[in-house]
């Protein structure tokens, strides 16, 4: 969770610099839309100044810390069960896998959207679909990993891992095929802004997980060394 907190703080700085200008542009677009329809810009319940600083900080840090907590649990289970790896290798592998399985793949189907996109009427459906995609992706990844582990008894490591990855890709593709596509981007929304926002959001997750994985690895290895758990210090039982 400490590693998650650190990752959250760095992700906040990243979001401040890269995401905020894009969010502001999107909100300008959104307000223009309201005006051209004869309405007024939506009244501000929380000022933009608070949203873009304190609100963003709270959201990102709480989220990252929670991700850090879950990451710690997955690590506690995975360490020593994935294969012969020292803690730092396990955390980096887990962070990379989490980025692909929980963010990259679901985002291919349901990418991030800046403000001004999305019909408030469909928020329930969209949220349900998004989480369904994540859950499917995670379940497929766990299944593929168990399969790969099983195959390792019969095949060499590379082939077993490739089989697992192939099964995962097929399962993810099936989900993308079955689940409905959501496209609520207004016709005149700038394409560059949309593309940049999605890339920045994906980049944010990459930053978050990279920092989390690396920092957690350092902390976990230090702690496990101290406790005598490490592969490095443990005498091998012959």
């Amino acid at each position, binding site marked *: 969770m400490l590693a998650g907190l650190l990752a959250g703080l760095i992700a906040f700085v990243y979001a401040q610099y890269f995401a905020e200008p894009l969010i502001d542009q999107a909100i300008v677009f959104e307000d223009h839309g309201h005006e051209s329809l004869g309405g007024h810009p939506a009244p501000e319940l929380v000022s933009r100044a608070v949203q873009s600083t304190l609100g963003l900080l709270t959201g990102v840090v709480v989220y990252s810390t929670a991700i850090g907590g879950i990451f710690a649990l997955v690590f506690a289970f995975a360490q020593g069960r994935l294969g012969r790896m*020292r803690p730092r290798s396990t955390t980096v592998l887990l962070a990379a896998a989490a980025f692909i399985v929980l*963010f990259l793949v679901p985002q291919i189907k349901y*990418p991030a959207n800046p403000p001004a996109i999305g019909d408030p009427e469909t928020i329930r459906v969209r949220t*349900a679909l998004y989480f369904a995609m994540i859950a499917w992706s995670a379940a497929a990844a766990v299944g593929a990993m168990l399969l790969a582990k099983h195959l390792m008894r019969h095949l060499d490591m590379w082939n077993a891992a490739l089989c697992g990855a192939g099964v995962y890709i097929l399962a993810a593709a099936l989900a993308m095929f079955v689940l409905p596509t959501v496209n609520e981007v207004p016709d005149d929304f700038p394409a560059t802004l949309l593309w940049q926002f999605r890339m920045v959001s994906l980049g944010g997750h990459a930053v978050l997980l990279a920092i989390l994985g690396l920092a957690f690895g350092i902390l976990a290895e230090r702690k496990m060394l101290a406790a005598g*758990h490490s592969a490095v210090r443990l*005498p091998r039982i012959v």
Partner: protein
Amino acid sequence: MSTSTTFAPTIAEPIAIPVRDILPWAIFVGLLALLAIYFVGAEQGAISIIPGMYIHEFVHDGRHFLAFPCH
């Protein structure tokens, strides 16, 4: 049983933490973490426990940045 210490790194069998030791933590931290993610990601959007839009508006930018579906 004889043991011998090896000095090369990453050789020995890594020790797995027993599931029995992880479980209480998993339930406690898991619930807490999911609740936190729920409040950042979905409260007063898709589902609303506390009426109003204040939480939604407060974490608004983070919600967009972190790719949660939002209004």
